[in-house]
């Protein structure tokens, strides 16, 4: 059984008439075990085999090796299949329970992968949904690799495929090279509770695939739900996952009673995730204490962790003016992500003034929140004259890959120090 630890970081003291409560709820899982321990696990590997994957040829070669590396990590008993995707989806290896022989056959099959045709990601996802539905598994995960934009089908096909896949499987997405669309893959991975990242060079693909599959196989908690209670008359301003990545969850709420809403969080391994909770409550008399939100993690219908977000109204300004450092940190990190994404979008649209201003703000926030990784990625896109004031100049020549790396990693956050 996994062990769960929850912590709340907040300044619960509110000044008279104050209404907004911000808190960071940190949930940590340990002893998660191995995927499939509480019901079968299933994996689908989706490899882009569109024509562009053979130019350069190194890409499809690397994809074969990477798929094999991932297959090697699949633990015995896990259902798995491999799909190749182009203008449609083809079954490379059918749903089979993993053992030495099955992994060998699957690796032989992926060694034959070749590239031709278009890119229709929606049809790949639909094929994966169908495969997952064919087995009785409680934990379903896919790896999707592409090197291009979704061009082989109408955008609405992709949208409805993503919608249909929600709740069916989680999906980690990887883009190889510089010709894929960061926003497009980010939307897919976010909706399907997965990660998105760039694989700049094909030779890094195998390591990345191996790592992704290892992580998935270490997720012994098949499915967990975040349950949030707020008092009558309260308004949820937002619920946002802020670590390890930023995910807006507010709109994913599923009503579970008059005062309770639930949010899917997918499967968990040994990891910790932080959530920023913001709730508006009617002000209470000085001295009143109230519960503003009860945040619980529910696994298999059982509450495994709980955090209480509280408010105490006080006229002691030494208490009420303090800003919790975790709340401040993640507020800065969220603004950093938005500044990077908006700055890059403005740059792409040719609006250099806005791009300079936004990326300047990003450099300022990255420095202020001690996010050295973000600072280093920003430095490949802008020259930082003064991080403290956010003074930057757009670089004259920027590698597309560097811009994409900055964009892709924008939602990755650092922890509070």
């Amino acid at each position, binding site marked *: 059984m996994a062990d769960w630890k929850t912590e709340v970081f907040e300044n619960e003291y509110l000044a008279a008439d104050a209404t907004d409560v911000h808190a960071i709820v940190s949930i940590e899982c340990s002893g998660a075990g191995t995927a499939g321990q509480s019901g079968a696990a299933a994996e689908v590997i989706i490899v882009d085999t569109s024509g562009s994957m053979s130019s350069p040829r190194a890409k499809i070669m690397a994809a074969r090796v990477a798929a094999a590396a991932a297959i090697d990590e699949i633990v015995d008993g896990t259902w798995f299949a491999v799909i190749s995707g182009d203008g449609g989806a083809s079954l490379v290896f059918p749903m089979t329970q993993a053992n030495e022989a099955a992994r060998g056959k699957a690796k032989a099959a992926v060694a034959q992968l070749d590239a031709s045709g278009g890119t229709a990601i929606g049809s790949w996802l639909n094929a994966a949904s169908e495969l997952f539905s064919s087995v009785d598994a409680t934990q379903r995960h896919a790896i999707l690799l592409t090197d291009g934009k979704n061009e082989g089908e109408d955008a609405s096909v992709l949208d409805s495929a993503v919608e249909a896949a929600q709740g069916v499987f989680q999906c980690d997405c990887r883009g190889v090279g510089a010709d894929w669309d960061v926003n497009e893959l980010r939307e897919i991975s976010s909706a399907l509770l997965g990660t998105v990242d760039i694989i700049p060079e094909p030779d890094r693909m195998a390591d990345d695939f191996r790592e992704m599959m290892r992580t998935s196989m270490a997720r012994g908690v098949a499915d967990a739900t975040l349950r949030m209670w707020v*008092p*009558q008359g309260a308004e949820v301003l937002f619920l946002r996952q802020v670590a390890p990545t930023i995910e807006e969850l507010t709109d994913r709420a599923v009503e579970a009673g008059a005062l309770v809403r639930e949010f899917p969080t997918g499967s968990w391994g040994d990891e910790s995730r932080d959530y920023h909770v913001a709730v508006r409550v009617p002000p209470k008399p000085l001295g009143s204490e109230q*519960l503003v939100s009860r945040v619980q993690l529910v696994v298999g219908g059982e509450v495994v962790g709980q955090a209480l977000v509280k408010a105490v109204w006080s006229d*002691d300004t030494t208490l009420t003016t303090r800003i919790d450092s975790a709340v401040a940190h993640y507020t800065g990190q969220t603004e950093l992500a938005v500044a990077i994404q908006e700055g890059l979008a403005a740059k792409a649209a040719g609006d250099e003034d806005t791009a300079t201003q936004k990326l300047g703000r990003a450099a300022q926030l990255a420095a202020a929140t001690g996010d050295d990784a973000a600072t280093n990625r920003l430095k490949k896109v802008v020259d930082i004259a003064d991080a403290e004031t956010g003074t930057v100049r757009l670089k004259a020549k920027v590698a597309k890959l560097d811009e994409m790396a900055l964009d892709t990693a924008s939602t990755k956050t650092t922890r509070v120090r």
Partner: protein
Amino acid sequence: MSEGDPDTVPPLTACSTCGQPVVATDQFCEACGASLGASTSGAASWAASEPATGAPAATTPLPAPSLRRCRCGGAIDADGFCATCGLRAPSERDHFSEQPTPDLAMVCDKGVVHARNEDAAAVAAPGERRVLVVCDGVTTAVDSDVASLAAARVACDVLASARAADSNAPAAVVEHWTRVLIEATEAAQQAATSSAHPVGPGENPPSTTFVAAVIDGPVLVAAWEGDSRCYWLPDDGTALQVSTDDSWASTQIARGIPRDVAEADPRAHSITRWLGVDSPGGPPSTTSVVLDPPGWLLVCSDGLWNYCSSADDVRALVGDRVAAAADPLAVASSLCDWANDMGGHDNITVALARLGGPDPTPTRST
């Protein structure tokens, strides 16, 4: 409330929160309830309110937390918050009630502003006898919440278990209960002094006001030390404040100082008599009234009468509350809610006995 000799009150300083005058050694501000940082003993837990030595155990078990409800009507969850509005539910020490018979009830509530509930009450109804005791622990002393509860319960036990008067003649009944009330006050004094933890240097020892009322047939006998009050509120006839405050203000008024001048003084609420280690001593004040039911007997702390003092005003207030529900527990709860709505600046205790049959209101107009 704070305590003080009528003439030599300890030096006053200002509360750092509200600026009102406070005694230098006080733990909490009398006006706003803020901690003054004079002691680290903090709020006594409910467990600690069991007397340390000598005093008897609780006469009536407190309601289990799961049975309590929030003021909004919501259930109280396992963490002590209302499952509907989220407000912190009062602890069992901060809010408790008793109703031994349909005509007798008490509610004791922390109020809004104070950090602890130092009020206490106990009621009992052996046979036709009705016993009501209210104690208001002195905010500025350590463990007053422990002392007040121990005092109220032991006095109630003494009054409930005492034999009846030998004669039914009113004079004999008055004499009997006056004697028993003095014994009950002594027992309460004993409990208040022995219930506390050792007092550190610079700390005030726990102390409490005391008011006890016994109704035996038509006779009411009351005893008190301090400014917790007893009112007789007949449905018809003159409403009466039975007790007379032992306070600096009433001492001054008795000496001929105008009431408005006396009550405006910062020391107005300082009590001149109380129970506890440093009690001025002497027997309690006592009085008796031959009642003319139907009516309500109200015993309360200043958390209520601060907002409604004169007997006529109190009767109007109770009548107004009775209009909604005439059950003593409901009326007592409703009076506490009212005092909380008025600001809840102090702990609030209301003990009520209904005499002469159920109140006919809501049809009766007040």
